[in-house]
């Protein structure tokens, strides 16, 4: 599903974010990415949907070689993975329904199919009744649920989440986590960068700790591991 071999990333300003990383994630896994700020977590996540590209090394996502992918094929990659961001990244001028529908419009789905599927996922995240509202009219938790709905609307094999609970209060964070659990239960791989100790220690899954651009620890069912 996701495979990294000796992936190395150096930014133009000289900072080495990933220093020869090797990792393999299988279909259907739920993986937490933890580690201190600036350790390379975000770079790791951003590479998955090709916001950043590896300087060297081999990286396969869903069979696509990200080190060699052509610029015009990047949209095709992004359609195969769902991404949830810390700051939600909803389109402010589109209402809830349109935001979720956008991910299906880019793949030129039929309007009837779009309608059916969007209402289905909005129902799943419990916000069907707010379909006509705009992002600014919703709470942070609701916005993140829309963002999750958008990430799964075209049934991707993997959902990448970059600190999805980072801007949310504890209670709403649990709602979002329950959503991810359900999505994972249906066979979707989840890759989630987080700073949330409580979540990692309660909902036990594989934990990959990144430090200094390398994997410091990789254990299934592990705990958060850093002192708060």
């Amino acid at each position, binding site marked *: 599903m996701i495979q990294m071999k000796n992936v190395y990333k150096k930014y133009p300003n000289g900072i080495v974010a990933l220093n020869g990383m090797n990792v393999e994630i299988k279909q259907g896994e739920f993986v937490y990415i933890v580690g201190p700020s600036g350790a390379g977590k975000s770079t790791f996540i951003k590479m998955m949907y090709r*916001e950043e590209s590896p300087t060297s090394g081999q990286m396969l996502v869903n069979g696509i070689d990200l080190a060699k992918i052509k610029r015009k094929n990047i949209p095709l990659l*992004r359609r195969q993975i769902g*991404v949830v*961001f810390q700051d939600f990244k909803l389109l402010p*001028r589109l209402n809830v329904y349109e935001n979720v529908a956008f991910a299906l419009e880019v793949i030129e789905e039929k309007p009837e199919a779009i309608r059916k599927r969007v209402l289905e996922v909005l129902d799943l995240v419990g916000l069907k009744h707010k379909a006509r509202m705009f992002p600014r009219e919703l709470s942070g938790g609701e916005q993140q649920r829309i963002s999750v709905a958008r990430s799964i609307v075209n049934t991707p094999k993997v959902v990448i989440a970059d600190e999805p609970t980072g801007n949310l209060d504890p209670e709403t964070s649990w709602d979002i986590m329950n959503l991810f659990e359900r999505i994972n239960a249906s066979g979707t791989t989840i890759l989630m960068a987080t700073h949330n100790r409580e979540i990692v220690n309660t909902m036990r899954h594989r934990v990959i700790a990144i430090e200094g651009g390398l994997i410091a620890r990789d254990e299934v069912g592990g705990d958060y591991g850093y002192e708060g």
Partner: protein
Amino acid sequence: MKARTMTRHFRESLKSLGRNGWMTFASVSAVTVTLLLVGVFVLIMMNLNKVADDLENDVEIKSFVSLEADEATLAEMETAIKSMSGVESVNYSTKEEELSDLVLDFGDEFSLFEQNNPLLDVFYVKATEPQQTENVAKEISQLEGIEEVKYGEGKIEKLFTFLNTGRNVGLVLILALLFTAMFLISNTIRITIVARRHEIEIMKLVGATNWFVRVPFILEGMWLGLLGSILPIALIVTLYYNVTEFAQPKLSGEMIQLLDFAPFIYQVSALILLMGVFIGIWGSFMSIRKFLRV
């Protein structure tokens, strides 16, 4: 791109116009003001150009026939002049006709000369190109039986130089204004797009291709241009309609005429519309380019 996607882009571009509210208003206003300026300027310049043409075309060669020439020589001369290259028309006027023209212009005192007409028969010759007048005049003056040739020598050369300079200055001004208009409008559109670069980034991250992001913006630019050209066209058509209504009766029979309302004003309207649409599209296209690199 599938047809339903194109439909979607059209729908989105229209929706975006409405949801952008003030930004749309600002862009449309900028387009309106600029195009109005261009339109009025084009009206003025084209009419000045017409006046220049009229002045030039009014130039003619007055060839006086000597008294010795008989009927046969006259006929010969006329065919000779007509066969010269660069001659558009030849009009023969007898000395009696010349005198009655004089009386018409300057009053009855001149009718005294009817007893003993001192005038000469005249050929009025027009050159196909005003600039050829001088050459044609020289050629005519060499014909046998021509007493004298007059065409405003010295004065018309100055007039032609003056008119040509005027035309060139006008052309430069129009080009400068068009350039300014393009810059102004595309800059306004750029501001609205810069304000939305975050949206472009999100669309790209969700898997939209460049064209999928671009097309609605380009269509939106087109609508801005289209909306922005409505008012200028309406104003210019009204303005020119009133100007021609007012001026044409006063200018009837004069050598200087304004351009007719139709089809001139339709051409100017089409120009304004095309400019608006083109600049709208071009401005969006150029502004969005650098934000697509996500």
